[in-house]
């Protein structure tokens, strides 16, 4: 879920602090920090001419917090997601076919609320301190089926919104569904699903800040 600020309102760290306080208020136990890094790649032409048109321009790389040995690639326009060993980053550095344009870090605190795991964090570029967005990740641990857990997660989201509404913050969290079927993903939830969700969330976040 990403944070949609009210029209005219600005993002600030206070919102993040309030969201963390809300998680604790629901009985959440702080479970450490987390960080996920998203890299926007741009193609590097071998020669000085412009790159061919069919080379994808929205090439995303993702290093997930709980999968340190794996690196995920997403091509949103082509609805492709794949994963490789984490050493692929070193290979890409050597190949120089794609260069990292900008890296965003999603980082914050992790909470355990019974059978739910909550990650509340901010989105900051790695080379700057500006806050680009606030987002959160919710996982219901006993289930792996997206269909079967849909109702539970929707109700959790309602409870969360209710609790947060009491703080009168200038904005609210929005959940945008990712279309996993487009990417060829099944009902059984995997880290590839998470990668797709991050890509969707990132796009929404940037659109929210721009507007």
């Amino acid at each position, binding site marked *: 879920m990403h944070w949609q600020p009210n029209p005219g309102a600005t993002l600030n760290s206070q919102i993040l602090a309030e969201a963390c306080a809300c998680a604790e208020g*629901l*009985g959440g136990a702080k479970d450490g920090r987390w960080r996920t890094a998203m890299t926007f790649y741009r193609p590097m032409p071998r020669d000085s001419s412009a790159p061919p048109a069919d080379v994808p321009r929205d090439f995303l790389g993702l290093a997930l917090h709980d999968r340190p040995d794996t690196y995920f690639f997403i091509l949103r326009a082509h609805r492709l997601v794949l994963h490789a060993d984490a050493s692929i980053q070193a290979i890409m550095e050597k190949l120089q076919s794609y260069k990292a344009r900008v890296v965003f870090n999603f980082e914050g605190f992790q909470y355990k*609320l*019974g*059978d*739910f795991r909550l990650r509340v964090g901010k989105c900051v570029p790695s080379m700057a301190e500006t806050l680009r967005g606030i987002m959160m990740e919710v996982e219901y*641990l*006993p*289930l*792996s*089926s997206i*269909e*079967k*857990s849909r*109702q*539970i997660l929707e*109700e*959790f989201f309602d*409870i969360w919104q209710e609790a947060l509404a009491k703080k009168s913050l200038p904005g609210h969290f929005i959940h945008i569904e990712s279309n996993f079927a487009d990417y060829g993903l*099944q*009902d*059984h939830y*995997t*880290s*590839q699903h998470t990668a797709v969700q991050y890509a969707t969330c990132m796009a929404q976040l940037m659109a929210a800040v721009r507007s």
Partner: protein
Amino acid sequence: MERPGARGAADRRHQDRSRPAPRGALRRRLRPTPPLRPHRPPHHRRGGLHAPPLPGPPGPRQLEDSGVLNPSLKSRGNSWGLHMPLVCPDGAVVAYAWKRQLAGQAGASAVDRTRLALKAFTDQKRRFFPHLEDDLLNHHGESGIAKRLCSSQVLPMSKELVEGKTLADILKNLEHEVPNIRILTYQRRDWSKRASLLSSSVDENHVDPSKEQNLHNWKKLRSASVDQIAVIELLMPSIFRAVVSLHLAGSVNPDAVAFFSPNEGGDYIHSRGISVHHVFRLVTEHADKALQYYLSVDPNNSLPLLLCWICSYQTLFAKVCSKCGRLLMMDKTLALLLPPVHRPYFLTSSVKGQSSDLTKAYHIGCSSEEI
């Protein structure tokens, strides 16, 4: 087998030889022992040396009136010079003659002593526990009490659930009634292999269980193998995995049940294991109560009742609470967000026979005493 009392008696044996003893009684004088109470077997008594003095020993008439010294006992022949029960010269009554016998170093053999002890215990039991069935050898002492407790709660037997139904019949009926469930059966030692296999399949790749099902599909087992079934796994795909163990392999007596997430794997997955997830831990606790209830109220049909009840949990993450109408709720006592984990298990009589109402679901806080 020496006892302090006996030792004490042996010491005093030499003290009073001159005193004439009644016919059949041993020539000894014992310090008066306290009267026997029903709940204290005599070998626990600290009688003999330190017994408190009695108000007065009962005379033979009193013994007859109290039923201790009855005509049948008196008329028994003295096979080795002992009456049952013994009346000592001082009037003390010893119901367990084997104790005196040992003290008196009578020449009875072990068989005689055992027979005497058995007779003594039987008589005592008949006297002090008349409501129990007189069938020591078949251990019906305890079940007699259990039967008495059950008789006040027995509900009319269902016509459909017949006594003596086999395990295969029960599983077949369950498959028919609950088509979503996947039933797998195991011998006791095979289950640990299965549990370990589950842990290796808990990763990104969703293992196709059809292969395993072929191995453990109970329908394909020969009748001899059905007798070895000790663990039943009920898998509701993507919702839960329940493990039920049977008391004797091949029987229809469940003795433990536990619920787990279908993603869980490892050695702790068994009928007495505990899930890592709160929701399944709480369902397991509730299932323990349901199992004990079915065993006490309808032991012959406890397995089909339990299995049916387990299958009602297929709606664990979909069915809203019948009281508050919500799916997820914060339990104030546990401080956890939970779906309705309670399903009623109490049996009610209906036209079709005994059944539990499997249509309701309750949060822990919403469920009433009747559940």
